[in-house]
């Protein structure tokens, strides 16, 4: 369920960037998701609903997957665990709680489109729903 919260957070952040840049629409959104976030597919699924009625509507979402890597302090080297959540060095078996990559949930870049100026907020985020209805 929280993938919808994350999709909404992404859309809000992108809309703010677009607004600050004076862009009316967003053509492409590139994000980076670590293997441990585990929601790439769910984010693709939720994104169109979260984007509806905003400057992100119709934008192409591209997700770059980042593999899990950990630091083994025993081998003093970067390692890839045998499985997700197996936080042990695959070579020496030492616990490796320090995750170097794999937890990312990051907005990387945007391709903005300077069409006509439009409002860039989500309809349901309107501070005054009654005013919104009258309009």
């Amino acid at each position, binding site marked *: 369920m929280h993938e919808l919260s*994350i999709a909404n957070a992404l859309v809000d952040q992108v809309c703010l960037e677009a607004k600050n840049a004076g*862009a009316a*629409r967003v053509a492409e959104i590139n994000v980076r998701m670590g293997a441990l976030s585990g929601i790439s597919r769910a984010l*693709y699924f939720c994104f169109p609903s979260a984007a509806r009625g905003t400057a992100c509507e119709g934008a192409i*979402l591209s997700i770059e997957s980042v593999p899990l890597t950990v630091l083994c302090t025993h081998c003093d080297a970067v390692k890839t665990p045998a499985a997700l959540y197996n936080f*042990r060095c695959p070579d020496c078996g030492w616990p490796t709680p320090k995750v170097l990559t794999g937890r990312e949930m990051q907005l990387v870049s945007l391709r903005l*489109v300077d069409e006509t100026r439009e409002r860039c907020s989500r309809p349901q985020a309107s501070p005054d729903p009654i005013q919104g209805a009258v309009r």
Partner: protein
Amino acid sequence: MCGACGCQPSIGTGQSPQEGFRRVPNDMVLIERDILSKNDRFARENRARLSAAGIFAVNLISSPGSGKTTLLVETMKALKASVSLGVIEGDQQTSLDADRIRATGVSAVQINTGTGCHLDAHMVGHALDDLSLDNGSILFIENVGNLVCPASFDLGEARKVALLSVTEGDDKPLKYPDVFAAASLMVLTKVDLLPHVRFDTGDCIANARAINPNIEVLEVSAQSGAGMAEWTHWLTTSARRSAAEAELATHA
């Protein structure tokens, strides 16, 4: 499959990137910011506010029905004479949990998330406005019963605690690893039921430590009182340690 769920962008959005857009030169903007940065900003504000007020906050995460509220009610009874306490309750609906806490004489604020499956830092910030807690207090934030989503949302707490009841199965840490990876402590609850269920405590702890080698473990029954002294001791010592860490951080 992918066409149906939309996970392949060229199919899911139904148009090519150029369609309907006038491309402008140099229109690629580099951002590189966490998607949950807004939540994280609220969480940092909460953490600074709690630290400045001398309040130790614990975020309790578990499945529904693992005994979070029952453990809290017994914790209130055990600690309220010696420590100032407060509770923020998160549930989709009702104020039943906050009512149970208030019945012990401790103040509680109920957050109803509606369709939401987790608390976020913004909700907790507003709940803090409604609680007046003394310096040296312990604040319990009982998250929405859910072993998945709450792990992703920092609330500004000092410690995350994962609860797991022995009726749920000793393989839970492997199946829902995020929460156990993020928690400082795993509390095994309802241990009075151990004679009646197939639950291997040793296996469960090994599973949790495979996910998080540093996780501490306590075995507790709020019903019988077993392990309650260790749990309240963990709370008071962690509160002192957290205050010392905050002190060091301000001088660093």
